[in-house]
């Protein structure tokens, strides 16, 4: 490597790294931005980064590039995102994200993401839920995979670039990115002032436990859907890292807001997602009008089909936001017993048809092959000729670690401020699904890839600014502090290895997951939630009596690792269920039939949960607060649960009428001449 591949980033001989935990989109984007700011990184990931859950994102990424001449703009994107989220998200971060989106998609294009193209060779865009505009760029139906690969490649390039010290000399053996793959996050290392100085992590190949110093730590560890047992998520999404950080003082926000995706394939191990893009390209949801319809879906004539979403929501049709679509599907199957009839079982199953058989095979092959292939492989039926059978499944957590932002005078975010993406634990940052910031009470489809990338783009400069100004380096602290943290973690792990109780941790997790899935998702009732909370306590109590299924030392031990994840999942389950119990209103994904209205006077506020260490039992272990005091680089900050709705005024959320989601909600509502203005 010549000097052109080396850049200055470190003082004297010490390489003062920042730790990024998680190698999905948010983590990788954070790493890239840190490297570009001359900050060397330790990238710690539970799996080889190329196998992160971001690969599962199918449909696309939103950006108001307006290449279709519809009059779309970042302002419309902001309005529809705020409205789609039922006004629970602070609006300046949404504005900053939507303004940046066209540039982000263009950057991905430059990185070589094979986005679909128009005949002119421009990026193609399709429709997604909660909008009437073509705003979603896509690479077939495996967009997340393709974007993850592009970022993975860029980070791999940084793995080959040398660290230089401040005199421009190469530091021998030190590369800008050092990857620790197959490492599990165990805990933060906090100094006596509560400032985050590193992490303790475990090498899953050898189970060796190590303390890592870091000038700052960024968690980009994804969502917690595995708390619900089966979901659309990868099995690694236990939320363990966010849970552990919360138990060490990080505030957790809006935990009760969990997105249920309307269309997934039921399965024994996983509920596989069938992307919203299927409906974006014209797929239609229906059930037979006849409750005892015996013909296979493809033989049911048009007149005998009930396109219930199109009928009830003529404006947005099959592309109503996910919370609404899921509730309608649930109502159809669960309450009205109108799911697809199975003559063999004599039951109306919890399934509706998702139909693309009327669409041209060539369009399906070019734009949706990846997802239709999943249906074919796992359901064993050809979706090109048979309507698919689907049901809702837990998909995404809007809630997560609380993070801050610095508001600009123009109502956006001050990029470069160390407050952006900062948790209330000084030196700890968070980006991606593990934090709560961008989606309010319901996320719009194709906004998650965007929020992951934008979160990373903001976190990188924020952390670089923090590192530049931090009063004391982690490398100036006594090594005894790190050794102590390492030893504590080793003792805890040894204790797990010695657990000989009669509870099987996998079976216990299954019990927890079933309760959460059945009673704490689409419809929530307080009496049921009380039972859920009692069940969580029961599982928590029994989890202290598990028998570790594998007591092997010094080599990969998934059984012992799982016990740790289970304990952390129980903490997250409490945050979801207790948050849901407390919030007596309906907003976005959180729906209580007994409190069917949104109550802005009482509940237009962020749920802020603080862990009470040492407490036993539900009511003691979470403290809900209305404000949060923390300090960053020595300066005190006070945050409250008030939501900044200064940019889009809250109003009733209705998708029956076309264009209701924004002021200029109809494509073509503005004259084509003004729609063609350059974005800037």
């Amino acid at each position: 490597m010549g000097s052109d591949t080396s850049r200055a980033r470190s003082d004297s001989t010490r390489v003062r790294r920042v730790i990024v935990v998680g190698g999905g989109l948010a983590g990788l984007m954070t790493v890239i931005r840190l490297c570009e700011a001359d900050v060397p990184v330790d990238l710690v990931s539970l799996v080889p980064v190329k196998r992160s859950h971001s690969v599962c994102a199918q449909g696309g990424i939103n950006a108001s590039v307006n290449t279709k001449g519809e009059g779309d703009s970042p302002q419309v994107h902001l309005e529809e995102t705020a409205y789609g989220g039922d006004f629970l998200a602070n609006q300046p971060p949404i504005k900053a994200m939507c303004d940046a989106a066209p540039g982000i998609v263009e950057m991905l294009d430059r990185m070589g993401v094979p986005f679909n193209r128009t005949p002119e060779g421009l990026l193609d865009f399709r429709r997604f839920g909660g909008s009437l505009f073509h705003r979603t760029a896509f690479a077939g139906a495996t967009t997340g995979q393709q974007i993850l690969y592009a970022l993975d490649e860029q980070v791999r390039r940084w793995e080959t670039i040398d660290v230089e010290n401040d005199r421009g000399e190469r530091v021998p053996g030190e590369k800008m990115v050092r990857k620790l793959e197959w490492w599990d996050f165990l805990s933060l290392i906090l100094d006596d002032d509560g400032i985050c100085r590193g992490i303790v992590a475990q090498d899953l190949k050898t189970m060796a436990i190590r303390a890592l110093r870091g000038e700052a730590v960024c968690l980009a560890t994804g969502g917690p859907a595995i708390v619900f047992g089966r979901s659309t998520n990868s099995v690694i999404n236990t939320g363990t890292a966010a849970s552990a950080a919360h138990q060490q003082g990080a505030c957790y926000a809006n935990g009760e807001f969990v997105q249920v995706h309307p269309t997934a394939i039921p399965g024994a191990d996983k509920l596989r997602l069938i992307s919203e893009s299927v409906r974006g390209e014209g797929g239609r949801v229906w059930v037979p009008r006849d409750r005892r319809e015996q013909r296979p879906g493809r033989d049911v004539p048009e007149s005998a089909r009930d396109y219930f979403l199109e009928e009830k929501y003529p404006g947005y049709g099959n592309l109503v936001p996910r919370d609404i679509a899921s509730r309608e599907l649930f109502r159809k199957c669960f309450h009205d017993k109108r799911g697809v009839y199975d003559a063999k079982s004599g039951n109306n199953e919890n399934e509706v048809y998702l139909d693309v058989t009327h669409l041209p095979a060539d369009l399906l092959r070019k734009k949706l092959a990846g997802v239709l292939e999943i249906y074919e492989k796992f359901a064993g039926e050809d979706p090109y000729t048979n309507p698919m059978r689907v049901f809702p499944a837990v998909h995404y957590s809007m809630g997560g670690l609380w993070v801050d932002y610095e508001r600009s005078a123009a109502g956006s975010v001050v990029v470069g401020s160390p407050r952006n993406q900062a948790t209330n634990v000084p030196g700890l940052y968070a980006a991606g699904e593990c934090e709560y910031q961008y989606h309010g009470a319901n996320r719009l489809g194709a906004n998650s890839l965007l929020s992951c990338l934008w979160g990373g783009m903001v976190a990188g400069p924020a952390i670089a600014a923090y590192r530049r100004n931090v009063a004391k380096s982690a490398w100036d602290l006594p090594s005894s502090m790190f050794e102590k943290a390492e030893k504590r973690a080793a003792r805890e792990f040894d204790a797990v290895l010695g657990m000989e109780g009669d509870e099987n941790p996998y079976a216990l997790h299954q019990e927890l997951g079933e309760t959460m899935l059945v009673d704490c998702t689409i419809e929530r009732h307080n009496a049921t939630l009380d039972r859920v909370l009692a069940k969580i306590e029961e599982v928590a109590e029994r989890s202290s009596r598990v028998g570790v299924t594998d007591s092997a030392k010094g080599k990969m031990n998934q059984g012992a690792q799982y016990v740790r994840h289970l304990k952390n999942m129980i903490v997250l389950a409490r945050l979801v269920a207790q948050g849901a119990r407390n919030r007596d209103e309906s907003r976005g994904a959180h729906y209580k039939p007994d409190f069917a209205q949104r109550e802005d006077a009482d509940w237009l506020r962020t749920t802020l949960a603080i862990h009470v260490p040492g407490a036993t039992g539900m009511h003691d272990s979470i403290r809900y607060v209305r404000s949060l005091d923390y300090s960053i680089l020595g300066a005190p900050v006070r945050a409250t649960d008030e939501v900044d709705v200064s940019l889009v005024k809250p109003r009733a959320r209705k998708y029956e009428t076309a264009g209701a989601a924004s002021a200029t909600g109809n494509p073509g509502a503005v004259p084509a001449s003004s729609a063609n203005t350059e974005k800037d």
Partner: protein
Amino acid sequence: MQKTVKLRVKRQDGPSQPSYWQEFGVPWQPHMNVISALMEIQKNPVTSAGKRVPPVVWECSCLEEVCGACTMIINGRVRQSCSAMVDRIAPNGRTVTLEPMSKFSVVRDLVVDRSSMFDALKRVRAWIDLDGSHELGPGPRQSQSDQEVTYSLSRCMTCGCCLEACPQVNGGSSFIGPASISLVRLYNLHPSGRMHADERLDAVMGAGGVEECGKAQNCVEACPKEIPLVDSISAVGREATKRMLFGWLLK
């Protein structure tokens, strides 16, 4: 009566330890795949002989055949275990046989270390040399037909099926394997990637490079994403030959 799925698993307690076989029976469920069978073992880790053992260790993540993690040898064929549906691979109660991939070192049981594949991506410079992630406007225009080719190549999950199936990838050779050669083709097709095409070609010329392909064509058969690996190897081979013969003229 409760149907049972029979599994025969090749196990290994750690790197460079001897391997051994164990058999398990787990309750059948509808739509069951190999992963859910392995999950049943976790809930009740007892062999068919009634012996309590540590559950089988394997790697998995997405469970929908886009991450590549859960690759193993199932009934003699390398593939992802998530998309191996029990009713199809073992009809009428036949036994499902699971082995770790043989071209990589075993970490434990069915988990292997594929870091050599990621190292190969460094060697071939499988990336676009980006000026930076700041805003620089849109990327180069590309035709729909070019996108169809690049998308098909870009779906490689680095799962290792093609290496496992390739007779040229073995203990006695340093052949880099089909996956990374195909990515050389991908990046050399991209309008900006092409600007560094020669560096990637240099990386697959010489020992362990594209010339060592024995044209068995097993790779394309084994690839779960139907990536045209043989075409990629031919295309990169042609470019490499051109560069070898005429490259000096351009210096």
